[in-house]
């Protein structure tokens, strides 16, 4: 396997990991398990409701910056950065 293929594989692994989190916080916590999570509270918010209307959005933002940071690392590691 050449360098570009290894880089691509590392990229795919990272994307899959990030998308699992993406799915878990929105479709998981915000929709599929919302009623179970609503038994817990975060201040005046029921937890599932908080994930659906607040939490998932904050995590989306963090996730994109994490992805961008890790990709920049991978670009350097595999020496495929732009000039």
């Amino acid at each position, binding site marked *: 396997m050449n360098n570009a293929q290894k880089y691509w594989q590392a990229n795919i692994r990272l994307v899959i990991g990030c998308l699992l989190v993406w799915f878990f916080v929105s479709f998981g916590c915000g929709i599929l398990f919302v009623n179970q999570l609503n038994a817990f509270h975060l201040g005046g918010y*029921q937890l599932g409701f908080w994930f659906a209307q607040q939490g998932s959005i904050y995590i989306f933002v963090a996730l994109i910056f994490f992805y961008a940071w890790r990709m920049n690392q991978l670009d350097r590691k595999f020496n495929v950065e732009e000039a």
Partner: protein
Amino acid sequence: MTDLMITTYIVVGATFALYLYIALVTRAKNTGEFYVAGKGIHPVLNGMATGADWMSAASFISMAGMLAMGGYDASAYLMGWTGGYCLLAMLLAPYLRKYGKFTVPEFIGDRFYSQTARLVAIVCLIIASLTYVIGQMKGIGVAFSRFMEIPFETGLFIGMGIVFVYAVLGGMKGVTYTQIAQYVVLIFAYTVPAVFISLQLTGNPIPQLGLGSTLSSGDGIYLLDKLDKIVVDLGFNAYTAQKGSTLNIFLLTMSLMIGTAGLPHVITRFFTVPKVKDARSSAGWALVFIAILYTTAPSVGAMARLNLTNTIQTGEVGSPEGNLSFDARPQWMHNWEKTGLLGFDDKNGDGKIQYYSDNGLSAAEADLATARKEGGNVAAAQAKVDEASAKHAESKFASFGWKGNEVTKVDNDIMVLANPEIAKLPNWVIALVAAGGIAAALSTAAGLLLAISSSISHDLLKGMIAKGINDKTELLAGRIAMAFAIIVAGYLGLNPPGFAAQVVALAFGLAASSIFPAIMMGIFVKRMNSAGAICGMLAGLGSTLLYIFWYKGFMFIPSTAMAPDNAANWLLGISPGSFGAVGALLNFVVAFTVSSFTKAPPEHIQHLVEDIRVPMGAGAAQNH
């Protein structure tokens, strides 16, 4: 002229002067600057412009109203319209930036080495963008007519003129810098009233925290608990409880996410940054700026619902003194009644207003009135009214002497616009909200018009019809196409087809079921060939169109609908607006099946795919 109107004219006029000034300073000199701003926009600024581009009149005006009335179920819009940016950042944006051309159809046409694929993409793009822009034009007209008390048409013409000057002159470069200014105006206009209202209700100035806090008036009761209790007392579903089916909420969220990532005017924004790594972070910055509004909206919605309910239900439910009297209703109610977006009817003649859920009685009565007026099936409508009123007679509300919900009309869209008036905020805040709503509509309209004009001049004209034209001719063609698109959008805004509200589902359905899967497979599946991609796009597009038309009528002509548009008739309870995700799935399945039986793409295409996967070697703007 009232003080409020003078303030509004000053604030809105000042923002317009700013937009025009920016357009003059930053006007485009070549096609690179016209289509993609010369790829020199800093990622943070590009993120801000993307935010303004993305947040339309629907986000600014309608979303909080949908939350106020829908409660938990409207979360699908919050998650759907933000989660799509994760898909965009990780699956599309960096690779399209590496590819380094101007438009979405250009990528699809080159990657699938097929003019047919390019044409399908152009058609999807134009339909999706044009249907979207009609709503913006209408929003501009409404905002003008409400706040500056000029006719709807005049407001629309002023809006068209402003967009014309800065989009035609400035192209992407001018539009981008104007959108940065518009973002500042709209976010300020959205958050200032929210901060005031949160402070009034909970003592916490941060709306996101205020929504999870205790009420400053009550004895330590949480705002959301209080809201749940009061709406349940009035017969509505609890605000935080789920009403629709889980499957439908799931698919609606998924459709909106994929659709967001597939909307061409959003994708194009990521062609404007200097480097591949900037495309990744720029999506993050865009979402930061969008999240500021989207995390504030739930507070605005819930607090508006609480304020509205408390204004009408002033005391104990059922006690004669517990309701607002008709003659004492505040000025903002009078103002909105004039627009027809808010309506009352004292059904039991007690001089008070009762706002509660009468379990469909009012809706049945309204249907009966329509049937009488338009010669429908009166007997069937009468039977429904009898059934509903028999049910109502057994409810606790009948024993209070109530005879049906007396708030006969409350339009979702008034929630954000009336909010500062409900909370009795100063005039400059109300004027600011008007300027913010107009900024949101203008910025989105400009982005969409740019996407339409570039696909006409660059893809259709230069790419397919007149291949030999030079840069200067193409730029002129782009400007003419833009002017033409503004006139068409303005005309449709003045004479909105009856389906203006439903077409949003269509725009997202098309983007989700055709554009997103095609681009994604083009990047991630090296083996995908032209036959697979074209069949996939047609399958996604066709199934989604068929499903929407089945319930909404073919070409949205209601009489041609094949089945009534309600949950009982939907396939597995999937609403037409949620079908885009299913269409996308069909697209993937068909594309993989067809491509596995047909020839692999040629060598040079496989090299192209390998090339866009690594950032190294991305150049500046290329023009064939």
